[in-house]
């Protein structure tokens, strides 16, 4: 049957597109684009989402893209991504200068901007040079708008070179826009006004670190898009105040989600929203100036509320939670972070009032203790996720009650809960048989007995993380290896665990995808070999600070684990550049390796090429 290209001869364009639209992986789409010219053209029609980093924001690039990818509906431009090696080097210097600890990307981007405004002219022009040559401009936005007139979602993240002019040109050309996400852009009010005038189908708006925006712009937008807007997020925009919230309450009748992170919002604005937006389902507040008064009205008016997240409230008391518990009967998810004035009473009222509760997170609320959690165990039978972070006052009895009452618990996170001991976990193990995720960090009272019970009773467990619990040893892991088919395991800092424990995991968990054994001083090469034999699906490995693992161990591991994508191996004295080379050359899917720069030979540096996003981070 050589020579007959039946597929191209038989099937017309629209049917080829039908077939391509059923390909789920990017790799399949990429492969089709390289088969022949016809497939290239048609395949481009089926791409709906473009994610572009800093190196691809020139106007010419968008012209090209818009001609080829005519089906695109979502465009994400994130100028923090994929910088060239030179820019990366410069940005690393910025990071070290401004940041003490590791932080997530937002903080880093702030630092970059701070740096740009610094006084050191020569350094500054170096950075500005690099940043601007890759920055999206207003002209670029105009080209984007022209090229993708059916655009539905647009994200502009840290695009420091665009202004209202650019946003206006997109708004005018893309009238079907449904979602707009602006972070760290110096766009002014005129841009939002334009969106309000042109994009009458806007459903979602997210503004973060947009210092140029004031109430004027947002108010005009709510007038224009009020009927369609369903979700609004405002964070760190200093000039947006209660006036905007009042406009939201008058014009955005169908608002369902509101997320605010601002010290410039007060009760006035929030009361207006609570009273005016009757369909509010999700409310996330990180506003230090808001008080009980707001929660009181929320409890009275927001009867459809399903998700409530309160962050850093110093002016809230149990009275506020009282109202919520009495009024918001549909509440499913409650997150309380750093709300130090709340006590067990408040939590008890919510627990007894909101029987539908499925998610509860208590983070650093020092007033909440065992009694509050006991009432959750007694009153919330539908609980599926529980997270207790930095709650020293919560003791074993609380979890005994949870184990008895919450049969459907699937995920449990405990961080720094020093009063919780083995009996608590054993009760959870016996009571919550469908537990899938257990994360425990620095809970020093928990030891082998607890984890053995988990291995015996929780057969659905797939994600286990026991970090810095120095009473947990090999016996625990042997039980887990026997009883649970794990995909993710993290035992970093549990000093008593050695080869025996990890080998038991290697034997018992063939589906293991992610493993972190950092800081375990007793692990040796034999463990790496056994992991290579037993866990071929391993994707992410962290062996940092494991002094006894050598190049030999690495090569045993890499021989069978061909799907490895990320590998952290810093402070591993036994590993040399040969070992690093083995990992890079032996794993075709490798995306990120964290290792000291001195251990990367020139040859390895060359091999990595442009396919890997970044290879070495200079420590």
């Amino acid at each position, binding site marked *: *049957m*050589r*020579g*007959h*290209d*039946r*597929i*191209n001869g*038989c*099937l017309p364009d629209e*049917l080829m597109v*039908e*077939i*391509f639209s*059923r*390909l789920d*992986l*990017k790799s*399949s*789409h*990429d*492969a*089709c*684009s*390289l*088969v*022949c*010219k016809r*497939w*290239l053209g048609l395949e481009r029609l089926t*791409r709906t*989402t*473009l*994610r*572009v*980093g800093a*190196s*691809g924001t020139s106007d010419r*690039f968008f012209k*090209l*893209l818009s001609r*080829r*990818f005519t089906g695109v509906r979502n465009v994400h431009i994130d100028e923090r991504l*994929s910088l060239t090696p030179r820019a990366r080097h410069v940005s690393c210097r910025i990071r070290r200068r401004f940041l003490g600890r590791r932080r997530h990307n937002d903080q880093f981007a702030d630092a970059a901007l701070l740096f740009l405004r610094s006084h050191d002219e020569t350094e500054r022009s170096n950075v500005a040079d690099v940043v601007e040559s890759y920055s999206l401009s207003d002209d670029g936005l105009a080209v984007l708008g022209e090229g993708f007139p059916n655009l539905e979602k647009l994200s502009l993240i840290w695009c420091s070179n665009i202004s209202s002019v650019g946003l206006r040109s997109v708004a005018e050309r893309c009238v079907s826009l449904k979602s707009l996400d602006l972070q760290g852009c110096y766009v002014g009010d005129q841009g939002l006004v334009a969106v309000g005038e042109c994009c009458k189908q806007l459903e979602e708006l997210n503004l973060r670190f947009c210092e140029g925006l004031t109430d004027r712009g947002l108010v005009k937008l709510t007038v224009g898009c009020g009927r369609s807007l369903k979700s609004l997020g405002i964070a760190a925009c200093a000039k947006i105040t209660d006036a905007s919230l009042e406009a939201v309450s008058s014009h955005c009748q169908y608002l369902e989600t509101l997320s605010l992170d601002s010290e410039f919002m007060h009760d006035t604005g929030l009361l207006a929203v609570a009273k005016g937006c009757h369909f509010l389902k999700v409310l996330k507040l990180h506003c230090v100036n808001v008080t009980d008064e707001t929660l009181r009205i929320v409890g009275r008016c927001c009867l459809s509320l399903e998700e409530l997240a309160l962050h850093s409230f110093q002016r809230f008391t149990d009275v506020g939670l009282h109202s919520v518990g009495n009024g918001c009967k549909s509440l499913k998810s409650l997150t309380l972070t750093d709300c130090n004035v709340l006590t067990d009473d408040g939590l008890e009222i919510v627990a007894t009032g909101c029987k539908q509760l499925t998610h509860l997170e208590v983070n650093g609320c020092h007033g909440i203790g065992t009694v509050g959690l006991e009432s959750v165990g007694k009153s919330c039978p539908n609980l599926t996720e529980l997270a207790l972070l930095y709650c020293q006052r919560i003791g074993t009895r609380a979890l005994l009650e949870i184990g008895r009452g919450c049969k459907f618990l699937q995920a449990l996170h405990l961080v720094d809960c020093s009063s919780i001991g083995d009996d608590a976990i054993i009760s959870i193990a016996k009571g919550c048989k469908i537990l899938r995720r257990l994360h425990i960090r620095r809970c020093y009272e928990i030891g082998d007995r607890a984890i053995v019970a988990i291995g015996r009773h929780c057969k659905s467990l797939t994600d286990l993380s026991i970090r810095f619990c120095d009473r947990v040893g090999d016996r625990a892991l042997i039980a887990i290896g026997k009883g649970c088919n794990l995909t993710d395991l993290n035992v970093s800092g549990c000093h008593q665990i050695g080869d025996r424990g990890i080998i038991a995991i290697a034997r018992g968990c063939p589906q293991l995808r992610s493993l972190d054994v950092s800081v375990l001083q007793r692990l040796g090469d034999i463990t790496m070999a056994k992991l290579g034999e037993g866990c071929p699906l391993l994707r992410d490995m962290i062996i940092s600070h494991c002094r006894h693992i050598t190049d030999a161990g690495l090569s045993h591991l890499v021989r069978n684990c061909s799907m490895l994508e990320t590998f952290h191996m810093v402070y591993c004295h036994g590993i040399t550049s040969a070992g690093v080379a083995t990992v890079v050359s032996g794993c075709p899917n490798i995306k990120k390796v964290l290792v000291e720069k001195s251990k990367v030979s020139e040859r390895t540096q060359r091999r990595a090429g*442009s*396919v890997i996003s970044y290879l070495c981070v200079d420590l």
Partner: protein
Amino acid sequence: MSSSSSSSSSPPCPKKMITLKSSDGETFEIEEIAALQSKTLENMIDENCASTPIPLPNVKGKILAKVVEFCTKHAEAGADAETLRAWDAEFVGVEHAIVFDYILAANFLEIPTLLDLACESVAEMIKGKTPDEIRKFFNINNAFSPEEEEDVRRQNQWAFE
């Protein structure tokens, strides 16, 4: 799958039958309930054009037979999902040139279930293969120059999803 003489009048009978005529002159009978899975045929039935044999110039006899089989099977009452899925898998487990014909017929007759099944099975043939393997499988000629190919690869890499 019977070749019977067409009858213009339909005497009252428990199962109403429709007659279809393929491009090469073969006729096939299909129950009305089964025929309703095709939007094209459904429209004709609604407009009362279904009393005479319906000519389908785009569909060969060999394929029309299989389409009738598919629609009849899927119109059966009480078929459980598992068995149907297995039957479907066997239905499209044929030479891929025939699956293309199914796609064309399902498109012409507007049978969404058959179109979905056939397109999905071709997509499965593509998944996991390199461009070279895809070309070999479907006997497609590569019309890219090395520079053009490099250009496409670069675009794929920049604009990642």
